[in-house]
């Protein structure tokens, strides 16, 4: 078929409703790179996209947003270690132990593997705890860093019984000799130290401060950069402030 004959099929093809044999012919023809028809189909897509104009507006329920964001939780498995990941890591450790053990003292290797696997299990437990906090209905969440030019961004979750969970991205690892300190700031009071943490090489951080929190009396959660041992009161400008 000639370009002229194929032309009637551009829009139907763009909508995925062109039937054979025209569809196969046009597809092959486009595959051969005919400039006229490629441009024609592109224009047809534009024209058809304009039809969205005729759709009456309907607002989606607010829960849909939460649901969609929750469904990409896979990405957060960087922070939220899954049992499978722990299993894989453990088997890597066992393999490392097996090979390294040929050259080094078996006892030292064994001790190292045990320490590392304990750390992994502790990490998994910490992450499970964080997940549990996230899933509580009474957990209040606030975001921070939105709209700032090169911000640490993220969320703070506050649960009256379980504590405060901070999830941050874009937070570069604290330089040597320094560490991040989280603060719980009561309304009209001085900041209360809420633990030290470090972010990973990709700038992701998760910090959980366990214990009951008086949510109504809390004004904000903040993070400062402090000397390695932490400080009783902030000594620098906060990098993160999440007002509750």
């Amino acid at each position, binding site marked *: 078929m000639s370009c002229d004959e194929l032309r009637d099929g551009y829009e139907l093809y763009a909508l995925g*409703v062109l039937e054979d044999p025209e569809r196969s012919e046009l597809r092959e023809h486009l595959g051969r790179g005919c400039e006229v028809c490629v441009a024609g189909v592109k224009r047809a897509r534009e024209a058809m*996209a304009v039809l969205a104009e005729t759709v009456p507006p309907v607002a*989606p329920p607010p829960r849909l947003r939460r649901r969609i964001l929750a469904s990409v939780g896979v990405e957060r498995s960087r922070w939220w270690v899954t049992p499978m990941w722990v299993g894989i890591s453990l088997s890597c450790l066992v393999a490392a132990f097996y090979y390294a053990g040929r050259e080094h003292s078996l006892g030292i290797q064994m001790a190292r593997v045990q320490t590392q696997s304990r750390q992994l299990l502790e990490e998994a437990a910490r992450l499970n705890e964080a997940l549990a906090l996230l899933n509580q209905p009474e957990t209040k969440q606030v975001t921070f860093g939105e709209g700032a030019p090169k911000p640490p961004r993220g969320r703070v979750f506050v649960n009256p019984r379980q504590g405060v969970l901070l999830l941050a991205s874009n937070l570069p690892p604290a330089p040597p000799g320094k560490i991040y300190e989280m603060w719980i700031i009561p309304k009209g009071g001085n900041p209360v130290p809420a633990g030290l943490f470090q972010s990973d090489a990709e700038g992701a951080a998760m910090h959980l401060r366990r214990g009951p929190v008086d949510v109504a009396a809390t004004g904000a959660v903040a993070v400062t950069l402090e000397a390695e041992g932490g400080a009783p009161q902030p000594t620098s400008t906060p990098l993160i402030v999440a007002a509750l």
Partner: protein
Amino acid sequence: MTLLPLLLAAGLSEGDRELAERLQRREPEALAELYDRYGRLAYALIYRIVRDTGAAEDLVQETFLRVWNRAQGFDAGKGSLGPWLLAVARNRAIDYLRSTSGRLRNALELEETEHPSHFLDLEKQILNSDMVRRVKGAFARLSENQRAVIELAYFEGLSQTEMSERMGQPLGTVKTWVRTALQILRDELGAAVSA
């Protein structure tokens, strides 16, 4: 009120390119922004097609996850996310309609129409408000049957054979309506592009 001004505003915003790049880096916050920009449009379009709120929610979720998973193939420097996302949304909804009505599912074909590389350079033309006005005007001038066949193709994903069965009209008649309607839209579009 119509949705296109929203589409225009969203597509014109500076951030589309940056947003596409952040989606490619798989930043969860980028998905949140994408939803805030296009979630309403996608939902309205899908709801118009499936007419069921529960199904519409599922399909909007599927749409955003698909875009999230395929953003790698999108050329952030050349394309606009909106038209691509809406094509994915329409296709998810049509696919759902086809499956619930027991019609033949041409999933492969729909996949082709939502390939991100097909949306290169799209925004420059689509965001031309003069073009939009002209095409809308032309759409309004179509006869009832001409408009009906275009809507059956766009909102229900019917082929001409299926339209002829649905409308109880000979295939030749349906083809004439389709051809004439598309010719009118195309002429108007050509005039807008060359204007």
